[in-house]
């Protein structure tokens, strides 16, 4: 650990605090009203006409239907593009069609915001597939997440007494506005900054070169910067290349590394403020922010500490280990830049990587795993992070209600049996999928044959894969060869259910909450802000996330760490 490292980490977290309010305010204005500037208003109407949209409010069932419809079309189109890429333009390497199971896995993975990569970009996908297929879905999946959040937020915050509008909005409008006013301009600016630092953006075929020593080397090319920008800003995480953000053409300098980390977390953080404004209770927004912020900082500090430690197995060798655990990490980012990036990639549902998580120390890898197991709500993905957080808020309020013995209320609305049932189902779904997939895989020969690392680390590899897929994160302990029929199909199923079933449950709650009467707060009302609320919320998140998975974490990372200290190898 170095002073410089600590400074980088603290500077980073300061920037989040500073930028949350301005960006949150901007997002609030984007979604609340039609644009104030006449040009944009006309432009928007034109686009709605092109899409055949008469702006109607949708009830929650129509909203869910539109959301799932759009995403299923997305899966179909991306799948077809992959299967036909040898007939499509912009394929200078003449890459063949993608095998069907890999194509399906990739299509589902990008549409569900997971961006799990069982393929390696350089040698599998043409430039056209990367752009029209994957870049498109990077935008669409991110915007879908925003829409899901907006619908739930409207359901919880609408006030019947004052507003005439009594539905949760229109999916198509939310989707298009997210792309037009948030992701497209943001990505455009970021892409240009990335190119200025050395991220490539061209359509030339791979370059065959003769190195200084006279050896042959082939350099992969492609339109990287445009995809890189939305990959990070939309917390998608699917890299252009196999090595993702550790590839020097994707992430060439410490500045691009810093901007990638910042743009990963900016929108999820800003949404806490946006939500506070929507709920007409900014302090509630800041309370949610503080809960997330505290968990996030704790994890970052632990991870930096674990990764800075030398590997005990190497202690008797003539090595100078003061730079820390550098296996799988890049020199330009160092331990601070790599561990902070890994932490942010897993607390948000982005899942990009600028280092190889499989080579992290056992406890460092466990921090990443816990980040995802907490439910991707500590900031989480764009939109879906806050979406999940609101589910935990409902559960916390419900538990508080049980403790005082009153019907729980949230923002003046009564929370009844139906909503609580849906919220509990929401949190129970993830462990079910993760543990089922993991156990089946470790009990079957086709599951185990993909392992690269033996011993407890192997268990962690499989657990990580199902966690990452179910939570739509997409990062990997990449030693596991996931490009087999078994993993391609089961992970695709996990991604699909893990994405859409929770959204359905959340929007059902939105539908039932939207028209509830507002009760005036009384002395017995549990306040949705302040330290008590933040503490309870954090406790609920940690108990559900950490305790559910405590047994399997003991068998994986914990035991591996003990073996490591004893000097046992596998």
């Amino acid at each position: 650990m170095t002073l410089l490292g600590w400074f980088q980490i603290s500077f980073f977290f300061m920037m989040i605090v500073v930028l949350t309010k301005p960006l949150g305010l901007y997002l609030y204005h984007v979604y609340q009203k039609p644009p104030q500037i006449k040009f944009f208003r006309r432009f928007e109407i034109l686009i709605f006409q092109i899409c055949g949209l008469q702006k109607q409010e949708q009830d929650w069932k129509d909203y869910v239907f539109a959301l799932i419809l759009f995403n299923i079309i997305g899966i179909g189109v991306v799948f077809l593009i992959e299967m036909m890429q040898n007939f499509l333009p912009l394929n200078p390497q003449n890459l063949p069609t993608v095998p069907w199971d890999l194509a399906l896995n990739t299509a589902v993975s990008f549409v569900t915001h997971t961006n799990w990569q069982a393929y390696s970009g350089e040698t599998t996908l043409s430039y056209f597939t990367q752009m029209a297929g994957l870049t498109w879905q990077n935008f669409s999946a991110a915007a879908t997440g925003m829409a899901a959040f907006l619908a739930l937020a409207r359901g919880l915050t609408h006030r019947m007494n004052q507003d005439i509008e009594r539905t949760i909005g229109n999916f198509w409008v939310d989707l298009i506005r997210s792309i037009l006013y948030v992701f497209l301009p943001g990505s455009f600016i970021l892409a240009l900054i990335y190119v200025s630092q050395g991220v490539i953006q061209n359509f030339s075929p791979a370059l065959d070169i003769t190195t200084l020593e006279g050896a042959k080397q082939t350099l992969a090319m492609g339109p990287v910067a445009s995809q890189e920008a939305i990959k990070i800003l939309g917390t998608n995480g699917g890299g252009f290349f196999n090595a993702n953000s550790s590839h020097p053409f994707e992430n060439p300098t410490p500045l691009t590394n810093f901007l990638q980390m910042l743009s990963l977390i900016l929108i999820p953080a800003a949404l806490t403020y946006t939500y506070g404004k929507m709920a007409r209770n900014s302090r509630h927004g800041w309370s949610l922010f503080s809960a997330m912020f505290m968990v996030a900082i704790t994890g970052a500090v632990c991870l930096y500490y674990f990764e800075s430690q030398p590997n005990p197995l190497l202690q008797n060798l003539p090595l100078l280990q003061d730079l820390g655990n550098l296996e799988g990490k890049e020199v330009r980012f160092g331990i601070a830049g790599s561990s902070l990036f890994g932490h942010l990639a897993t607390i948000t549902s982005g899942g990009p990587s600028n280092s190889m998580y499989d080579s992290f120390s056992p406890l460092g890898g466990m921090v990443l795993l816990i980040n995802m197991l907490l439910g991707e709500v500590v900031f989480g993905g764009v939109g879906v992070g806050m979406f999940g957080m609101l589910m935990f808020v409902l559960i916390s309020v419900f538990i508080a209600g049980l403790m005082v013995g009153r019907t729980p209320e949230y923002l003046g609305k009564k929370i009844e049996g139906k909503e609580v049932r849906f919220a509990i189902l929401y949190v129970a779904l993830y462990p079910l999928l993760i543990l089922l997939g993991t156990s089946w895989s470790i009990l079957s020969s086709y599951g185990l044959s993909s392992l690269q690392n033996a011993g407890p680390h192997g268990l962690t590899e499989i657990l990580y894969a199902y966690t990452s897929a179910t939570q739509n994160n997409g990062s990997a302990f990449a030693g596991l060869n996931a490009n087999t029929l078994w993993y391609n199909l089961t992970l695709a199923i996990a991604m699909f259910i893990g994405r859409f079933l929770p959204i359905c449950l959340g929007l059902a709650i939105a539908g039932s909450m939207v028209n509830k009467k507002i009760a005036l707060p009384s002395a017995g009302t549990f306040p949705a802000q302040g330290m008590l609320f933040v503490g309870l919320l954090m406790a609920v998140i940690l108990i559900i996330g950490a305790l559910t998975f405590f047994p399997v974490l003991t068998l994986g990372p914990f035991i591996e760490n003990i073996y490591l200290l004893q000097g046992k190898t596998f």
Partner: protein
Amino acid sequence: MNKEIMIGLRVSLFTLFLTGLVYPFMVTEISTLLFYKKGRGSLIFDEQNKIIGSELIGQDFKNPAYFFLRPSAAGKGYDGMSSGGSNLAPTSKKLLKRIQETIEKIKKDNFESIPIDLVTASGSGLDPHISPQAAYWQAPRIALKRDVSLKRVIALIDDFVEAPQFYFLGEKRVNVLKLNLVLDQFFGSPVPLP
């Protein structure tokens, strides 16, 4: 229902066109205009205008008269078409064996402890940098092989140590391809390996 499906198709087509085609092409056009060299891969050319490599992508230096980079898990080593790390766990036998082999190969260069980056593989397998310690550690070998004074080699490395960006982002590092190019410029090309 049917109407909704039509809307779905139209929105899909529109967003695909806008974000999948218009946006990447526009970024390409504008970035080519503004940052031509960087967008093409920060390539380095020799006098005959042939590409020697990219500033950003490491090369597999095997000749002991050049500074070595880190071990690479990309293909057979620094393969630009199969980027990736070793993905070996800290408790892996393979990792331990690989590190021991690397140490055996290079330890005769210098009897001081070897900086850790010289025996660990990077995440991309294409990392163009080593730490300043790792460069200084290799200086005696370079001086010996090229028959120049150790002082001159160290002075050269001093010039090539890049500070953290804006003094606080990232780590101190040395770009090995650039350094080796300058070695050749000052002291001539070495005898190629058989």
